[in-house]
């Protein structure tokens, strides 16, 4: 029940923001902040509940209510450790998103926060839905407000970017809907029990070819969202053109729903088909790592550069998931968290720079260290995190993934390691272009304000903490090793 309250708080908060902004835009900001903070508090409060739960490998909160009984659709939400840390990430980044749009958004404030909160609601719904119909429902709900965020508050080429984002993801999700329906009917015909419930559908026995086709329906949707290489096309545009908070949510959360979907649905429901397709997916993942890194290196647009680093990092997720080793799986979860934090932070930085310099072009920046030492210091830490420097969270994630993959697929994992080197190259280039060298911009810039400092400090601290004490996270997702038979090794 508490989970439904979390969703309701966000949905109601969004509507309240819209209404309140008619009178006073500032009120909308505070409402949004309070709403997301309340959800974060609830999510934190769930921690002791989780600890107290005797068997910490499973669903410590499980709530089911009838929704459309005629179809076997129920409002089934549940939480395990994996979903829980994703929820925490969602609300943490949610607060930062609200904070970073505090000054940036000046017009239609109420509607902006409405969209922001509804996107968050959709994302949290995706992470807790245990009914495939509900899952699809939330999967779609997070898209529309995101689309509006991009198209209304985005940059110059926002229309193109927003359409591209929407059409790509929608094509994938309709395929997923078809696959969900196929699964529903196959399961119904086998057992006579027509239901969309995740736990029931897990038991479906599929012939190899049906399993392959149905899995592809799911996988394509998730891989588009992730994104993996042939489907990554929408990402640089959407990330580049979105407002700062939009980029933060896209990079930090929306991409993670793709990874979540693969881990939660593709592997457990289609174990054999997933094992069959695994070599190809690892190949795609490695291609993404290298290709994303190379493209990131050649970008001059700061936000597009960061967007391509996401492609590269998400390649690691794909490699880790499909290498079927429990170490790599722990790495994947760490990567999901730390990439969300570090890339989110980089986008925030890009947003702050843009607010001051009115450009995203790194050839027009340079020498900013002298005028903005605080931002520069933060930037070094965050870029190094993104590049995978030891002692920071990303290092552990990528190291685990490579370690887990090496035993299965040494050749590809060696190639993937190149990605780490390349990431150092593009990160250093970015730092050098923006903060070092001669001063190019003549616009007087001020250093970070207290609000911005709080945002970046919070992110930096969490990245460092995750790098030094990853064990709690790894503990919470320990049970993921049971989702696939090959993972036991």
């Amino acid at each position, binding site marked *: 029940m508490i989970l439904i309250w979390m969703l309701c708080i966000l949905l109601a908060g969004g509507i309240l923001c819209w209404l309140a902004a008619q009178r006073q835009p500032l009120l909308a900001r505070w409402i949004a902040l309070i709403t997301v903070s309340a959800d974060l508090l609830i999510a934190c409060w769930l921690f002791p509940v989780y600890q107290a739960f005797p068997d910490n490998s499973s669903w410590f909160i499980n709530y089911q209510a009838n*929704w*459309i*009984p*005629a*179809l076997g659709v129920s409002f089934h939400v549940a939480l395990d450790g994996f979903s829980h840390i994703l929820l925490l990430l969602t609300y943490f980044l949610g607060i930062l998103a609200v904070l970073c749009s505090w000054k940036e958004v000046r017009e*239609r404030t109420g509607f902006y926060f409405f969209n922001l909160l509804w996107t968050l609601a959709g994302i949290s719904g995706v992470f807790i839905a245990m009914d495939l119909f509900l899952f*699809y*429902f939330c999967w*779609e*709900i997070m898209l*529309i407000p995101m*689309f*509006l965020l991009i*198209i*209304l508050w985005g940059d110059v080429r926002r*229309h193109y970017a*927003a*359409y591209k984002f*929407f*059409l790509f993801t*929608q*094509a994938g999700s*309709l*395929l997923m*809907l*078809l696959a969900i*329906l*196929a699964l*529903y*009917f196959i399961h119904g015909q086998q057992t006579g029990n027509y239901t969309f419930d995740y736990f029931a559908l897990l038991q479906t026995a599929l012939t190899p070819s049906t399993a392959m086709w149905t899995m592809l329906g799911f996988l394509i949707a998730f891989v588009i969202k992730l994104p993996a290489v042939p489907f990554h096309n929408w990402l640089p545009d959407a990330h580049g053109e979105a407002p700062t908070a939009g980029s933060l949510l896209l990079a930090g959360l929306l991409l993670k729903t793709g990874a979540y979907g693969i881990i939660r649905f593709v592997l457990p429901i289609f174990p054999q088909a997933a094992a069959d397709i695994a070599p190809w997916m690892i190949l795609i993942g490695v291609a993404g790592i290298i290709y994303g890194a190379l493209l990131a290196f050649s970008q001059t647009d700061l936000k597009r550069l960061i967007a391509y680093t996401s492609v590269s990092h998400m390649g690691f997720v794909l490699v880790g998931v499909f290498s079927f080793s429990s170490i790599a799986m722990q790495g994947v979860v760490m990567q999901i968290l730390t990439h969300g934090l570090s890339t989110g932070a980089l986008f925030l930085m890009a947003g702050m720079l843009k607010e001051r310099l009115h450009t995203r072009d790194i050839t027009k920046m340079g020498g900013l260290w002298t005028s903005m030492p605080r931002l520069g210091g933060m930037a070094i830490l965050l870029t190094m995190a993104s590049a995978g420097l030891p002692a920071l969270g990303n290092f552990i994630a990528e190291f685990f993934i490579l370690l887990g993959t090496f035993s299965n697929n040494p050749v590809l994992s060696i190639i993937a390691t190149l990605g780490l080197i390349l990431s150092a190259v593009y990160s250093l280039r970015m730092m050098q272009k923006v903060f070092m060298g001669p001063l190019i911009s003549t616009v007087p810039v001020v250093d970070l304000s207290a609000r911005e400092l709080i945002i970046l400090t919070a992110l930096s601290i969490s990245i460092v903490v995750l790098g030094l004490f990853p064990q709690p996270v790894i503990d919470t997702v320990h049970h993921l090793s049971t989702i696939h038979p090959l993972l036991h090794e």
Partner: protein
Amino acid sequence: MNELQLIPLLPFIILAMASVVTILLIAFRLSHTVIQVTGFLMMCLVVFATWYVRDTLPEEVPPLFIVDGQAALFTGVIIFCVLVIGLFSYIYFEEREENPKEYYILLFLATLGAAILTISQHFISLFIGLELLSVSLYALIAYLRNRNNAVEAGMKYLVLAALSSAFLLFGMALIYMEAGSMKFSGIAEKLPQVSSSPLFLMGLGTIVVAIGFKLALVPFHLWAADVYQGSPTPVTAFIATISKIGTFAVLLRFAQTIHLQQYPLIIAIFSVIAISSMIVGNILALRQQNLKRLLAYSSIAHFGYLLVAFLPGNEAGTEAAAFYLIAYSITLLSAFGVITLLSSREHEAETLDIYTGLIWRRPVVATILAISLFSLAGIPLTAGFLAKFFVLSAGVQQAVWLPLAVLILTSVIGLYYYLRVINTLFGTSGTADVMQKTVHPFFHVSTYITLVVLAGMLFWIGVFPGLVLQGIRLFLLLH
């Protein structure tokens, strides 16, 4: 024939009476408002009559009619639509100098035609119902005859509808020649002997052509955009909802009685029609700058989707089709209602420029339009999503993969132009404010409220479809 058998027909008799009452009111020179209110009350009476006769269902009125649950369901949807359209008509016609009174006679007669289609089980009643619908529509389309292209639209509809009627008659004659009966069940009895006869199949083919014309399916869709654009907006809403529901209802009954879906050839023909409707409708809509034309093309595509639910010929398909029609009518009514509300005395609010930044000027109206567009696009939280979902699930159940794949592909194409309109709604507003209506605040307010209720229904059905679904099942069981 005795008076007892007339009882199930009571709603239809009242519907016919409504038009006569309107004529009398006009003869006594009563005002538009009186006619409007009386018409509204008569329609409510029809609803009550339907409720009153519910226990007698299902009842056959030989030889032409059968009043069963399915007929009651579709008639109910039709009456609901005409209630809403009648309300929209008031503010639309009150603004214009033409005398709006005769409009209501024709509106009720056309509704009667559509309602008769839903209870037909015989070629004669099918033909008369269809003609009653079309003949009234000729005049309705050209009603504002000195407006831009009303007469052109009326003429186009007249010629093509007459042509399709000729096809229909020819097909009926051929089938009659082979089967020796015009009653659907009579044809069904003779089927084993005649089903492979070329004349019979040709007859079926020409009937499909005629129905295709009425439903504006590709390749018989050429009239749709011009007629949608040229007609007065409430009439466009009528064509898009009631006329198509009636035609689809009779197609459904015909198919159910003679088990149309058993013939691979017919299935192939319908698949081709469905696929081409989805593709052509969506692609032609992509570049439209006129909202009414855009909705015309989108309705072509939507009936393509509907045919995907029709193809399997199973119970799930019928349910999906009924749900789809309900969701689709509510959606379109709210879209056309917004157009009506924004239309001024001189201009129909049909070009997209008028809608630029509407959300900042008229937030409620624009939100309603946005919701209905989301529903047309099949986005969750709206009825359109569940409608599409049911169609998909009916298709998956019967494994008609090719039309399903096309459905998915074209839905994505379709999204583009719905999003384009929504994007226009949210654009930066530059143009002057749309003038407020001055006529009759009561009707203005009630139109407003109706729109809000319609949008609310879209949400409600989109989130809790259980009740509607149960209702549909209950009705469909009565046969």
